[in-house]
């Protein structure tokens, strides 16, 4: 009997033993299958952040061109959200820049994250 076969058999026995003892594995639903899944950087993410892809130099809107991807975005709503500001244009510009950064910088696990504690 090969080692691989032995490992397979042992895993099978372990599974049967767990079933016999009533030990249940945690059922983890695939992230993509969840209704509230939005892939970072996706079109849905763009929409979630209230961004709209735009053409650079569009005089009708405040736009921001990403230095990383060269893609240009504008805010979906650059009026209502900023109407109470003294300088709505400046506020909209900064907010747009923040949102594009958040959209494009890929989510990662910080290097400072410690390993999970196990007994």
């Amino acid at each position: 009997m090969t080692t691989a076969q032995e490992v397979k058999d042992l895993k099978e026995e372990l599974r049967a033993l767990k079933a016999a003892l009533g030990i249940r594995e945690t059922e983890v639903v695939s992230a993509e299958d969840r209704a509230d899944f939005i892939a970072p950087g996706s079109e849905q993410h763009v929409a979630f952040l209230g961004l709209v892809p735009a053409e650079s130099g569009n005089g009708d809107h405040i736009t921001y061109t990403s230095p990383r991807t060269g893609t240009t975005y504008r805010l979906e709503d650059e009026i209502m959200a900023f109407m109470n500001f003294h300088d709505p244009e400046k506020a909209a510009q900064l907010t747009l820049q923040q949102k594009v950064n958040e959209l494009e910088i890929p989510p990662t696990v910080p290097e400072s994250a410690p390993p999970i504690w196990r007994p």
Partner: protein
Amino acid sequence: MRRIVYAMMKIRQDQLADAKVPQNRIEECGAMFAELDKSLSGIASANTFKEVMTSADFTYALEEFVQRQMMPGYTRMQFAFEPLVKMDVVPNFQQVDRYQQRAGLEDLEYVGEKAQARPGSVVDATPRRYSVYRWEKQFDFSYEALVNDDLQYFQNLATLMGEAARRTLERFVSRMYTNAVTIARLTVLGALYWTTGRLTTNRVSTARMAFGQRVDDRNSPMEADLKYIVYHRGLQDTVSQILNSTQVAELATNAVNVVSFTPIKDPHMAGTAPNLPWFAFTDYNASGVIPFVLARLQGRPGPLILRKKSDTESATSLLGGGGAVDPILGDFASGNIVLKVSDVWGTYIDGTEGNMFDSRGCYGSSGTAP
């Protein structure tokens, strides 16, 4: 004069001569040893031989005088984590199972005339299994150290032990959401769970929107409002600015600030400025969305300080009566006094979910995107 006393006198006089002490003092030293020799022979002296302090010695005494005093210790930075973790009590060290219903029943369907309703289904409860563990540290002190402690350095030992237990628990709770597995899971769950933006008013609003889009196991909308922002201590001023300003802080303008949350500073969270992480959590009391759970053993709601009993059977004085053994006498063999601080707690640990009892209650950011 005895030869031994004479030798001692000569040694002392030579020492004084080496130290360039005035001649009259060297002679005074000789007279003192002569007096000592006489007193040893039982010859009464008119002068009482006693310790003297000359003006020169007093200068030395002034230089050597030291006052010792304990200064108050540091004040510990605290982490009020209680609202973030649902407390659970378990009966023993064995694993316990907890089930949570995370979906309602199916919607009703139109049924035509003479038609029969279709059978509905029930979503299985979500199981969670965890147990508690012992957390302890032993400290031993020598009998001499405790007796010599005229500064009462060890007096607040119990307080320090309690603080150590609390700090350990705080670090444990902090690590529930800062550990790599939990964050990796949040990352996989998508943009409604993990982001990269540094803490700003806009991003708190984005986090609230993300919580607003949470759905249950049947994809029905559910209550999961953002209640707590847990932040790295380096974000203290940012948080204060966001909260206290009636305007949106970081834009330095006059827009009305509609962002509200309860801030909780986590002093144990790691991060390097300006990339400081922050997390948002739900209020499990209000929504039933439990981000984390902290299990404790029944009858052990907090840390205990234990002192080892002396293994000396009795202490009998040769000058008087015996009595009960004072605990400070410590261990029979070494005289060590042994103390232990002990606590018991645990949480849900999973290779995929990390420590999240329910990921729907969590949202976080690495704080890397400006």
